[in-house]
């Protein structure tokens, strides 16, 4: 009887420990931005790339809640955070979405910003962009907004930079003719992006921003994401993602690997400065 009990207990213990180690092998993915947006796509690529290792998608309200979750997490968990989450607030205080170095894994992806206009807007020429009294719609974000303003002031002091809270608003403003140009990462139907803020031409761009004004600040500027996570030591998340079919088949091809050959320390310096 003792033997039977012992066998049952041992089996139970083995099954339980097996299931625990199985659960621990799974990696959860944190989603902290609205569904359907770019941030959601970035974490979805990770979830798809993990395949059998994928645990569950944990949805939280925002990036601050994601950081709070990371601090408490016992299981392996990974997410993608945008660069601006590391930016300090205007009063110099720490951003609630900023992570400590121990949660930083690696750079993820970036897409250069481009200067775009409606394709059917004949007056939106390069010459107008440089010299005209044009209105340029931008995503007004505490991190990117001042950079866009500095860039445009150097390109054309007569230009007015008009801030919009959401991309859909400045896309509609382009249609309405309220603005002549916009600064976006991805052109939609009916839009052309002749100038790219990059060191080489990508997409349908005709020139890089430095060709317009070599001394313009932020003429190489992208919208960037990095990997963050906890309890994933020994698991090469970037390698898994970049080798996956989900990454290779992504629709956002303007988003590519970023600083991936640089050391983790150097990458950390870039995002934490």
């Amino acid at each position: 009887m003792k033997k039977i009990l012992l066998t049952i207990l041992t089996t139970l213990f083995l099954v339980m420990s097996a299931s625990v180690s199985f659960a621990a092998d799974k990696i959860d993915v944190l989603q902290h931005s609205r569904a359907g947006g770019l941030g959601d796509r970035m974490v979805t690529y990770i979830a798809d790339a993990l395949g059998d290792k994928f645990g569950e998608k944990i949805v939280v309200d925002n990036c601050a809640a994601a950081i709070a979750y990371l601090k408490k997490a016992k299981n392996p968990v990974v997410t993608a955070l945008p660069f601006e989450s590391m930016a300090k607030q205007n009063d110099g205080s720490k951003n609630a979405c900023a992570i400590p170095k121990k949660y930083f894994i690696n750079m993820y992806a970036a897409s250069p910003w481009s200067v775009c206009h409606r394709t059917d807007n004949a007056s939106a020429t390069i010459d107008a962009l440089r010299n005209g009294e044009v209105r340029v719609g931008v995503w007004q974000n505490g991190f990117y907004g001042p950079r866009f303003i500095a860039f445009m002031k150097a390109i054309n002091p007569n230009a007015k930079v008009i801030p919009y809270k959401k991309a859909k608003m400045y896309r509609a403003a382009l249609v309405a003719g309220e603005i002549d140009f916009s600064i976006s990462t991805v052109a939609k139907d009916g839009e052309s992006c002749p100038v790219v803020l990059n060191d080489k031409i990508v997409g349908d761009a005709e020139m890089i921003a430095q060709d317009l004004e070599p001394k313009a600040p932020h003429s190489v500027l992208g919208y960037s994401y990095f990997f963050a996570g906890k309890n994933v030591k020994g698991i090469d998340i970037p390698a898994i993602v970049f080798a996956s079919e989900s990454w290779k088949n992504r629709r956002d091809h303007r988003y590519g690997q970023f600083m991936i050959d640089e050391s983790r320390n150097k990458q950390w310096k870039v995002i934490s400065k």
Partner: protein
Amino acid sequence: METAIVFIVAIICGTFSGIMPGVGGMAVMLMAYPFLVEMQPQNILIFYVVMVSIDQFFGGITAIVFGVPGSSSAVPSAMEGHALFKSGKSSEAIMFSAIGSWVTSVFGVILIVAMIPLLFMIYQIWNSTVQMAIFSLTSIAIIWISRNKLIVSIGLFIFGNMLGKVGYDTYTNDSFMTFDTPLLYPGLPIMPVVTTMFVIPLLIGSLRSSGAKVFEFPGVTLEGYIESFKKIKKYFATLVRAGLLGSVGGFVPGMSYGMSSILAYTVEKWVQIRKGSYRKGKGDMPSLIASEGANNAGTFTQLVPLLFLGIPITVSEALIYNILDTRGYPVTIEWFQSTFTMIIIFFLVSATIGLFLAGRYVNFMKYLNNLPIKWVYLGVVLFLFGAIGYVGHQTLAGGEHLLITAMLLPIGLLFYKLDTMPLIYGFILHDKLFEIAIRIWIMYT
């Protein structure tokens, strides 16, 4: 076959999101996300349009009978509709608002089809200056037509703005009253604010002023529906105003059908006050019809920017766009336009089904008849707390949302003698007003 299943499931989902306060169309879209990504592209659009259309019919009923708005756009329905409910006009209120919603749904479709050649011109008019003028006039009108003293309404509007400003603003890169806690970083969620600042004061005020001690709801009948259908023409002018404002408001970015519903309500209430037919606290049928009707007209027209310009103007539409995009489905304007006729058919069929389904569902509420009204209200409040916890739980923040509710409750209790609509609109409108004002300042200086 898949289309038929999608259609039925969308009706069920729309019913669920309409009845459940706080579970809006977006929440249902997220729950359905794993299934949506497997669907044929046109079925994703069908699911959305049917679900949102049905949702509007059911949401109005919950607002009228229990005074609980399922979303911010149903706040006027809760205000006027529940007052009509207390005045013993619940059946009329439900039937007229449902029929009015159906009429304006058809109106919205006809208007858009007729205006297709002019759409591009309308978008050219919809600039920041026009937006600022409309939002400012709406704000002034909301304050002006409130039953409170003017100074009190202004104070409530400012307080609503302050509540709306709580959180971290990516626009200014500053945080306001977050006290360095992640709890307040994303801002105050709308459900706790609407529950504590609008529903609970409304129900307490209702309990104190109402002579009725027990819940009484006569229900609706098919004969009543037919009779109301015949009488709806007396609200012809209201329906035209609501249909027009709802339709146009629905398809302009930054406004959406929620805002257009508020605008239509404000305009109608103002018209009724001018005519001398508006009775404070008794509920006003034309204002209710305008609010509900504009909502429904806008649910269809909000698809127009997506179908004709490729611009998703609501979060749900962005989700649809993303699913199509990531799955490699067509996201060209030509493809969207090719689905237009089919979308119209499904929208009109679902609006008709919604009209009759809502009539059937509402009679289940007769089971509550003769219960003490204070127990019904208590049940409503407990249900709302459960809904807040449930909706918050979806993002692992159920406890936090309930905590915020508990923190706001004492303030809300102070407002039971007031009309708190200016506060709610201050909360909803705050970022739009600030954002557009800054934009206009930069443009013209």
